[in-house]
């Protein structure tokens, strides 16, 4: 990239910034969406007029003042069920990503720092795992363990850890030769200490950006597995499961509408926030 046009000399009076450069409109929207869903997930049982599992009215009602998003095939309120869905999707995404980051980063750091046989074994395992199309591997793992949200979560960890191993290994490799690391080794620090105290604290930012974006993708993958029938089982108000009920009662479009919008907003929210984090850590990468 040749950038011939250098910015004009900064005027003597600096323009006052009301907000930092990475905090763009999409990032603010993203934060608002995530904050909304977190608050809903925590507080929803306190203020909804209906129970997500109980019949709230006549079945298959279109949206109305009493039921803003209508009722489903059993007469349950779709909006209430959609809001309760966050209580499944959000914790699952956080747990899956956290475990994937922990496993992937640990293995990646070991591979990058030790090199040799450990590196070869770990990275070949990464290569093989990444050779599967993610949804097919997730389906195979879930089917092997048996359908259910907990097994779907294990499957999603199995497909998402390798990326973190690659990210962390690359970071550790580039940091390993830095002067402060050599100084620590010269001062007699043990190998685990060098890795944990001198390398890892500097290696987190790519992982954090990727993990944030992954949260949305895991919400989507969990819903996909449930839609197929391998994740959440009825009557759980899980979004993918609700959309598959909506597919059965195809002419009642509102059954799938709420959960569809919920998934879309989660994916968008996390990817907006992830973009912002990337600009924050690496301002040069911005668009």
């Amino acid at each position, binding site marked *: 990239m040749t950038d011939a046009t250098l910015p004009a000399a900064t005027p003597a009076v600096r323009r006052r910034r009301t907000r930092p450069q990475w905090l763009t409109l999409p990032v603010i929207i993203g934060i608002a969406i995530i904050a909304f869903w977190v608050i809903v997930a925590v507080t929803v049982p306190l203020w909804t007029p209906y129970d997500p599992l109980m019949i709230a009215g006549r079945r298959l009602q279109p949206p109305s003042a009493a039921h803003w998003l209508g009722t489903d095939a059993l007469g349950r309120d779709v909006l209430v069920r959609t809001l309760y869905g966050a209580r499944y999707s959000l914790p699952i995404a956080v747990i899956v990503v956290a475990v994937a980051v922990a496993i992937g980063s640990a293995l990646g750091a070991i591979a990058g720092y030790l090199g040799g046989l450990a590196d070869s074994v770990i990275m070949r395992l990464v290569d093989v795992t990444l050779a599967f199309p993610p949804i097919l591997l997730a389906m195979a793992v879930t089917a*092997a363990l048996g359908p259910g949200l907990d097994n779907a979560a294990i499957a999603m960890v199995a497909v998402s850890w390798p990326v973190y191993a690659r990210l962390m290994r690359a970071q550790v490799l580039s940091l390993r030769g830095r002067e402060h690391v050599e100084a620590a080794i010269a001062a007699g620090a043990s190998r685990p200490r060098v890795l944990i105290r001198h390398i890892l604290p500097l290696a987190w930012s790519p992982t954090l950006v990727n993990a944030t974006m992954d949260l949305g993708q895991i919400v989507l993958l969990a819903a996909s597995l449930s839609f197929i029938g391998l994740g959440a089982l009825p009557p759980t108000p899980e979004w993918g499961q609700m959309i598959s009920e909506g597919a059965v009662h195809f*002419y009642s479009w509102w059954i799938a509408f709420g959960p*569809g919008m919920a998934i*879309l907003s989660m994916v968008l929210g996390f990817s907006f926030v992830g973009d912002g984090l990337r600009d924050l850590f690496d301002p040069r990468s911005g668009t």
Partner: protein
Amino acid sequence: MLRTIVRRLIAVPLLLLGVVTIAFLLSNMTKGDPLVAIVGERQMTNPEVVAAAKARWGLDRPLPERYLVYVGNLLTGDLGTSFRTKRPVAQDLMVRLPATLELVIAAMIVGIVGGISLGVAAAHFRDKGMDHAARVLALLGSSVPVFWSGLLMLYVFSVLLGWLPGPGRLDPRMAAPPAVTGFYTVDALLAGDLPAFVDAARRLVLPAIVLGWAVLGIITRLVRASMLDVLGQDYILAARSKGATERRVLFNHALRNAMIPTLTIIGFSFAYLITGAVLTEAVFSWPGIGTYAVDAARALDYPAIIGVTIVGGAAFLLTNLVTDVAYALADPRVKLG
């Protein structure tokens, strides 16, 4: 460069063996008993039937022996026999492959043609309405769940507006055209069956758009970025100052160079297409490999699940290989690491 290509060619079979091993181990970790899927719930109490089924499907042999037999069979193109359809998995997959390929190719066309046009338009009208619209469309494409957008589109275009037919590959009242390529649109044309062609093509539109949308989003974003990058370079200024028309500058000078990074993404987007195809087929009752995979997973039909997973992994590895090589050939500056 030849050496790196050869090295990749050697790595692919090794990775494939890894894929097969993991898939095989997975199928043997199962909690659910595959025997239930074979003999049915009621026969499980009958020891004779269970023993016969075990012997028949080789489930009484030790694990390493089963693994060797499985890999040996794979080398002869035998993916095992489906518990559910009781037919060879390879045969089941071959029957369904053309439906999936037809859908994926149509989606690829939507994604590539739409993505390049939108990307060029967005770069040309930078920061104008067109640019914003293209970016929103691209963003939605990679964020919307296909199993929901498919349902919505079917509802709007098929039920509300009545512009397009419902799910499936062909009107159930019509006879499928004689199979030559397995693509209904092509076969119908070859047979001179115009009504069948029109119906098959119309039924292809929605699933292709739903599936191609994600790819369209990726390609739009990339073409826009690399067009902006290229358009700022000196040789574009030179072309403009020589009096080349804007169209010539955009398509002959800029797009050709901007396409190089796009080439990798087209290969990479294959992953999205496989993921999307599984779910899109499920929504549109499309009788392809995706629907087969979903049905197999629901029925805990392990030979079928492993078969699909292995074939998917192989296709994935090969596409990546082809993409890498094509990329190196298209851009002499690229050195494969």
